[in-house]
Structures are given as C-alpha cells and as structure tokens.
C-alpha cells in the first residue's frame, strides 16, 4: 500500500515524464519545422510585413498630413467601416510615359549589364576553377576583396577616374589626346554596375563549375568534338544553372540600383531607383512612390516566376 503523499509524488513524476516525453517526441518529429521557422519568421518580419505596408500605401491617396497618405480603413459618420482602395497611382504610372520609359530603360540597362557581367565573369570563373590549388584561393580572395571596402567609396573612386578632369582624362590629355566625356553617361553607369556586380556572377558560376566532371570534356573531345563544339554542347549546358543563378543575382539588384545611376549617371540616365527616390523625397508623394516600388517588384518577379514554371515543367518531363 502506498500513502497518499507517495501517490502524489508518483503522479507528479509521471506527468513530468509525459511532458519530457512529449517534448522530445515533438522535437523528433518537428525539428525540420523548427529549423525552417527561423528563416520563415525572418522573411515575415523583414520582407512580407514591409511589403504589405508598402502595398497599403500604394493603394492610398496623397493628402497633406503626416504621414502623407489617406488611411485604408475609414469610419463613416454612422460608424460604418469603409475600405478605400485607390488604383489611380498604378493607372498614373501606366499613363505617364516617364514611368514606362524609366522601367524599360532600367530593364535594358540591367539586361546589358548582366550580359556584360556574364561575358567577363564566365571566363574568369572558368580560369579560377582550372587553376591549381593555391592560385585558386588567391584568385577567389581577389574576387571577394572589393567587398572589404565601402561600396560608396568604390563608386566615388570611379568618379575620380571617369571625371572630366579625372585620372583617365589627365593621362589622355597628357599624351596629347582629346579628353573623353565619360562621367554622367550611360557608359559610366555600365562601368559602375558591371564593376560592382561581377563578383555576384563569378561566385555562383565558380560553385557550379567546381562540381563539373571534367572527364565529360575529354569524352566529348574523344568523340570528335573540337574545343568550341565541346564548349557549346557540354560545358555550357552543364553550367547553365550557374549562369542562371549568377544572372539573377546581377539582374535583380541592378534593376533597382539607385546609387550608381545617381552618382555616375547624373540626370542623363533614367533608372527606376532614382525616380523612386525623387517621388519619395522631393515630391513627398508616398502613394506614387509605393506604387513605383510595387510595380518594380512585379517587373522582377514575373520573369522569375516564368523561369521557375519552365524549370518545374522540365523536371516533370524527365
């Protein structure tokens, strides 16, 4: 026979045991969920919440108050809740040639920059992968090295090089040539973007090529493929995932780039980042600025979703 006190103790331990058991059980079966929860919360907090905030503002109207937009939810006199959604901002973007042209110009500049980055980055990644162990690490370090100084500082350095009285023109005039107008041109913007984003092309390509089975290239040569043919029939298809990853990493931030077109392009280069800045800080039209941002997101997300869709189909067909 056990005394009542003993029974209580026994019961306590069993409930404790059960709790521990349940917890371990939970951890055993749900640790994946827990691990995923962290990035999920991060995205929720720092991407989705601001996104909906901006979306909300883009659907409001400009008014003279602080903050300068109308509320989404308004209370009419009889205590009736009204939701006011205004799509005028988007219509305005669509109607005004300035915005459409700016989007087109941004996409064009970042497309050309992406192609330039690919043309420069691909051979570099290839050379790095094929070099011997020690050189490889030195070269990789050199690719990453620019990140150790401030991005802004590096853009200013380019200004110093490209200016009308900059280093390059000094050298040119010193040698008796006419000075070149480089600053505040598309050329300067391309130089800035390609210079800044080329490492984002090289690194995913490097990671992809590092896994490449080089005997495949020998097999192609053995079957009669000249080096060029081997490149187009084997190397290129095998490195396509790296090319796509690198291109997205360059294209997406380059499209929304603000600092480079502002500092190196001046007023001559139309890019969406600058328009956004102007709407927000000079016109203080938050709703239109938000609409610009949302439209930019669509411009970027739609091609990505298309790509995903195509890839998923390809995987299915295999």
């Amino acid at each position, binding site marked *: 026979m056990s005394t009542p006190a003993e029974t209580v103790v026994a019961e306590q331990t069993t409930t404790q045991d059960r709790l521990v058991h349940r917890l371990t059980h939970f951890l055993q079966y749900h640790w994946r969920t827990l691990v995923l929860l962290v990035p999920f919360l991060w995205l929720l907090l720092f991407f989705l919440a601001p996104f909906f905030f901006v979306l909300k503002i883009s659907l409001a109207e400009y008014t003279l108050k602080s903050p300068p937009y109308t509320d989404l939810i308004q209370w009419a006199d009889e205590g009736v809740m009204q939701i006011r959604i205004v799509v005028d901002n988007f219509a305005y973007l669509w109607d005004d040639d300035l915005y459409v042209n700016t989007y087109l110009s941004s996409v064009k500049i970042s497309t050309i920059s992406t192609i330039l980055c690919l043309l420069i980055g691909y051979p570099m990644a290839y050379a790095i992968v094929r070099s011997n162990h020690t050189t490889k690490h030195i070269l990789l370090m050199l690719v990453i090295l620019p990140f150790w100084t401030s991005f802004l500082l590096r853009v200013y350095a380019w200004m110093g090089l490209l200016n009308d009285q900059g280093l390059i023109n000094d050298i040119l005039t010193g040698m008796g040539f006419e000075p070149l107008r480089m600053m505040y041109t598309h050329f300067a913007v391309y130089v800035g973007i390609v210079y800044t984003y080329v490492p984002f092309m090289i690194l995913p390509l490097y990671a992809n090529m590092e896994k490449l089975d080089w005997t495949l290239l*020998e097999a*192609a040569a053995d079957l009669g493929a000249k080096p060029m043919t081997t490149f187009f029939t084997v190397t290129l298809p095998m490195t396509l995932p790296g090319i796509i990853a690198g291109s997205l990493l360059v294209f997406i931030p380059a499209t929304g780039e603000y600092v480079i077109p502002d500092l190196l392009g001046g007023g001559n280069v139309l890019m969406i980042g600058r328009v956004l800045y102007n709407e927000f800080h000079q016109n203080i039209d938050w709703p239109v600025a938000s609409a610009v941002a949302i439209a930019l997101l669509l411009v970027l997300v739609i091609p990505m979703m298309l790509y995903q869709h195509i890839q998923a189909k390809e995987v299915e067909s295999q």
Partner: protein
Amino acid sequence: MSQQIDYNDRPWLDPDAEPFIKVQSVSKHFGDFTAVDSVDLEIYKGELFCLLGGSGCGKTTLLRMLAGFETPSSGSILIDGINMTDVPPYERPVNMMFQSYALFPHMTVENNVAYGLKRDGVAKMEIAQRVEEMLAMVELTQFRKRKPHQLSGGQRQRVALARALIKQPKMLLLDEPLAALDKRLREQTQYELMNLQEKLGVTFVVVTHDQEEAMTLSTRIAVMDVGRFQQIGTPTEIYEFPNSRLVANFIGNANMFEGRVSENGTDHVVVESKDPACNFYIDHGMSIQEGSKVWVAVRPEKIKISKQPPGETSTNSIKGMVGDIGYLGGTSTYRVLIGDQRIVEITSPNLNRPKDGNPPIDWDEEVYLSWEPSSPVVLTK
C-alpha cells in the same frame, strides 16, 4: 580462352606482320615523377590486349597517351602507320570508354550514343539508323529516351560502350571497363565484351588490375610494374612461363623457393634449395651457370599431395604436415607446413566423394608433396 585471333595465326609470332599500334620508347613525367618509363609496345589488328598491373603503375597514363589526352614527354606513338604523338584526341581514329563512363548527364541515351556521329557531320537519317542498330546490339532500345541517371550501372556501362563503338574506331581503349560492376554482372559482361569485339573486329586495349579478367579476355597481356612492362605474352605464357618472381606472384599463386644451381645439364637443370631442403630436377632446360642463385616457382595446382611416399624421395618431393585446409567444394587448398616455418600451398581437385564423410587428407597429418620435372619454373630475377 578467347578466339579473337586464330591459334595458328598469331601476328606477334610473324616477323613480317606489321603492328597496328607502335609505342616507341614512350616516357611520361609529371614534374620529377616518372609515371611511364621508356615503354615499347606493339599491338596487332584484331587483338584484345590487356594492360595489367597494380594501382598507380601507369596503366591509365599509357592509355591516355594512346587516346591523346596526355602528350608523351618523349618517344612516339604510331597508329596504323601514322605518327599520332601530337595529334589532338578529336582527330584520332581511336575512341575511349572511360572508367567513370563519363556519360553526358544532360542528354538522353540516344543523344549520348549519337554524339560522335553528329560531330562527324553524318546525315540525320544515317545517324538515326546507326543509333538504332547500336542500341539494339547492346540491348538498350527501350531505354533510348532515358537520361543516364535513370539507368542501372550495367546499363550505363553499355551506353558508354555503344557511344564509343558507334564511330567504328580503329581501336577502342577501355579503362577498367568492368570495375564498377558487381561480380556476377562482371563475369557475364566479360563474355559479352569478347563477343562484341570478335563481331566488330575492332582492336581493344583494356586496362585492368584484375588478373582473372585479363586472363579471360585477352589475346595478350602486358604485365606492368611502376612505369615499365615486366612481361608481354599470351595468358598461357604469362601463367606457365613467367619471367620474374613479380609476374609469377602477380598472376595466380606460386610457391617460391630460393636455391642454387647444382647441375646444368643439356636437357635439365638441378636446383638445390636449403629451406626447405630439397632438390628440384627441372627438365625444360635453360642454361644457367652452375652455382648461381635462382628462384624456383611451382604453381599450387601442379603439386600432388598424398599420404604415401612417392617412389623416389630425394628430388621433386618434400615431406610436411597439413597445417590448414580450405575446402572450396570443387577443389581444396592445403597449406602444408615444411619444418617449423615454411608453408607450401597446394590446390587439389576433390575427385571422389569421401565414403564415410572423412576427408582423404586431414589436419595435422603427415603428407608427401611431389611434382613433375616439367612443373617448376626457374627464375633469375
């Protein structure tokens, strides 16, 4: 034994026969390391030639020089009379089957096989037809639309073979073609490979480190050791007449006895061994200076084991005690102790079923070992 080349028509015995491949004093250095050391080799049309040797002895390097992936540091390589030493791989009439198969993962079986023909600019219709035939030959027709990762190891091996053979090369190089297959499949594929080779008449050069595979497949074997050939010959020659202790030990098993030549007759030699004390009377005479140090190798299956003493016990016979018996069903392997230390291995067929379940020769029994005068091989190195 394979039948690629008729027994009476062995080109390597014909002094007028022109070899198909001539490797002339070829060396390959990697830095200050010598992977292949001044090698000479002649391979004839229609041969299935095996390069056999331990790991790292330079087999792959030699094969890659034949394919054109490595340039020899010195020497020259002639294929069908043309100097190919500096010709790039894509211009050689030679195809290779890679050890890892190196199938293109982004292409279907069909496109993998067609790859070589497309590079030669063969007409579409002809490509389709030849791919069809080739896939039928290696029994892969139903897998034509699959990608390599959707195939089994054996199927991948056949794709690699088909891809290499479709260009009808003058010579096919195979680097350990069967190494990735399991034992049963390997044995089956060996015969398929031989049949295919016979049917197509293509010269095969096969790298392997599996001596049984080399014995089964080849017309001739080159036994390689650290960058050099130890011996080149038919499987029988290599097994029955090894030219060194290394070859004797590498191909099959051999009991090795150290001794001195005590008699050098016209048709025989006698070798006197100290450990175990025994005289070897060997009747296939090679002439060796009396008193010189030699080794005598006797294959385990060429030694008779019995409980009764043979007629004459001073030569070609020793007495010992059974230390260990490995029963393999068809044969048994006896490890017989001579004195305290020395072990001699004998394999003997189990011809009769033991009546009462007791083996004819049991552990710890005293036995006599004897052999024919033709069985031992005298080795000088």
